[in-house]
């Protein structure tokens, strides 16, 4: 479970995140949406301990990130939008390294090398150096490595960037399965169709403030929109783009020139 209380972060005079309060329960797949610069990445970085908040707190599975960072990090799996991999390691060596970092049993690592690399289509590349893998293959390897220590919380920034349709399908199914098995999945994406397809709940961030929170159908009802998530999103974030809302229809999608 993720518990965020009164979280705020500023960079100079820019307020990246303002007084964010949010609880993502165990087993929920939560999608965090917002325009560019709305504060999504700052929030996810605060959830992972990479950025310290100016105010407020984050608890991961009951562990306060500021007070017990190591205990919290053990339960966390994080995939940034541009993940780093050691280019001069082979995929099994990379998995072994990540496994050792998290204290994963060697048999479990070996099992992952056999099963997961095959499942993710990397079995034929076991002896290749990571630097020689394509972008999509590296992304797949990152997923294998992140799942290796069975994290209780998954934070993923733009999970489907650079993946082929087959892998996208696979990742979506995998994330849903992880959530069903009790893992809390917190992801940010700009692909609203993905959020609409897999999210149990979404949160929309605009200029650092959480402007909408709930299941997608509920949001549509609340804002009286018959369209899709895109319409809800565009209406709620119109200010970010400096767009006017259609005259006389304050609760509808904004006019896009």
């Amino acid at each position, binding site marked *: 479970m993720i518990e965020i209380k009164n979280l705020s972060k500023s960079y100079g005079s*820019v307020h990246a995140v303002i007084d964010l309060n949010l609880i993502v329960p165990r087993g929920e797949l939560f999608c965090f949406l917002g325009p560019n610069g709305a504060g999504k990445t700052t929030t996810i970085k605060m959830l992972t301990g990479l950025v*310290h908040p100016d105010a407020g707190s984050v608890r991961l599975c009951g562990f306060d990130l500021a007070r017990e960072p190591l205990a919290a990090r053990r339960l966390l799996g994080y995939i940034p939008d541009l993940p780093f991999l050691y280019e001069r390691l082979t995929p099994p060596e990379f998995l072994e390294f990540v496994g050792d*970092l998290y204290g994963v049993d060697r048999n479990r690592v070996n099992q992952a090398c056999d099963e997961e690399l095959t499942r993710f289509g990397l079995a034929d590349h076991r002896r290749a*150096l990571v630097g020689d893998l394509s972008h999509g293959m590296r992304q797949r390897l990152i997923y294998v490595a992140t799942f290796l220590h069975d994290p209780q919380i998954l934070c993923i920034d733009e999970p489907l960037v650079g993946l082929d349709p087959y892998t996208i399908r696979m990742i979506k199914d995998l994330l849903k399965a992880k959530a069903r098995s009790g893992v809390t999945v917190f992801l940010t994406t700009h692909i609203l169709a993905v959020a609409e397809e897999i999210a149990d709940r979404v949160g929309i961030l605009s200029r650092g403030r959480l402007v909408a929170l709930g299941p997608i159908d509920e949001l549509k009802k609340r804002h009286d929109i018959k369209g899709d998530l895109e319409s809800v999103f565009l209406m709620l974030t119109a200010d970010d783009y400096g767009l006017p809302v259609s005259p006389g229809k304050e609760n509808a999608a904004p006019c896009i020139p």
Partner: protein
Amino acid sequence: MHPLRVLYKKDGHMFANLNTVLRRESSFKVLFILAFALGLFFGLYAVFLSGFRFLNILGGAGFMVTRYLFSLIFLALGVMMVLSGIITSYSALFRSRDSILLLTSPIPDSTLVLYKFTESCLLSSWAFFFIILPYTLAYAVHEKLSPFFVGWTLLFSIPFLILYSGLGTIFVLLFIRWIPRHLREWMILLGLMVAGLIAYYVRPTARTGFDDSQFLLSRLIPGLQWASQPLGPNWWAAEGIMAFARGQIGRGFLLWGVLVSNTLLVIWIIRSLGKLLFARACQRLWGIVPPRRRQERLGAMLDHWLQPFGTISRGLALKDIRTFLRDPMQWSQSLIFFGLLGFYFASLRTFRYNALPDVWRNLIVFLNVFSVAAVLCSLSSRFVYPQLSLEGQAFWIIGLSPAGLRRVLLTKFFTALAAMATISVALIALSTTMLGVAPLLKGVTVSLSLAIALGTCGLSTGLGAVFLDLKQSNPMAIVSSFGGTLNLALSLIFMAVVILPCAIPFHFLNLGKIGPTTLYRTLGIVGPAIVVLTLLTTILPLWLGLRSLQRREY
């Protein structure tokens, strides 16, 4: 398994896989790089050996200098290690690409900092060993010492290196944690203090009537005394090595123990600071908002100055200048190297080098040209050579623009040249003015510095285009590639080929072996040859680079 062991094990795998990487390279490339490294090693050995022999010829002062030189070189290397430690620690701790992966894993900050410190030591150490080993070998051969001497040196060098490199890391951790809020004002104050110090040191001093040996002793002994302070780690290392060489094993181990215990203290301090400060230092650094107003003002000024060059060249040059100014690694290294040289040249009169006989002043002038040229070679190889490759995935922006690849290449060349030539000419002009040399020598050395700036910029820009690697985002990998090594080797060869034909006739003139007429005649032949060589070294790589860019498929 302890996290530190896990991290080292990962490095072990990466080292083992180096074999796979090397096997893919052509054996010519690998052999070339090896030959270059060996050439550099034995070249330095030869230089050091002839230096010791030269000191031997000097007699009294020479013997005295030789006695203390071991301590002095450790002091100089110690200062180098601190500076190098600052740069590599900053880069390893705060700018490394694996930071996010490691910071989100359950590794304690103290362990992470210790691991990054090891990385920083290893990165700094190759230059240290490339100097200390040929030096020790030359010293052992000259003094007819046991071959174990090199072994004793290694025994002391490792803790010595860790200690001084650690001081750099400690400085970085403390500085980043408490970056002054009013950095600009602090920098101005610091600049004023440095300027005041320089003004104090370079105040004019009258030429004295000392003879050579008196002068050397009075000038050199204070420096040597400083180097041989018994509280300095450089003295422990130098004295300890000598004690082992003399067979005083007990004294040797005592000094080694002192050095090792102090090194352990430094490691403990780094570990503690890592635990206490690292996370806060990261937040402090990553939370810095650049002062926009200053950047806008600087951008507007550059924009105005570059107007005469047309919009396209102005745009390209502005991008490169802004990239340079916003990369602390680039400007800090340039500032350190050129700043130290500038400070040394400005202090030449303090050391009364201007009062030396002509033969010595001539030697110092050309040594200074060598120093400036070596820094030019190093910086152009480090920063100018990888410029085009670092465009990386953004290459399509300039590649497809109406600027044309020719203009792109030439703008990069001229931007680098403007900076390199201005600094090198100014430094050599300062050095010759401080030494009070004749106008002819001044003209020749200033022209040489201009020629070297032209040649190194041409080579680095041109070869950077010939060996373009758009897939590589790590500048160090680009610099240490075959093309980067070839560029450095050719730059150093060009430097030697251009300087020596001018330095030798002036030296012979001062020794009385040739007359002024012979000097003029020699310069009359050498001068045009250098002009032709410089033009060839500048234009040919640029032409090859342009051809390669135009023929390449992207």
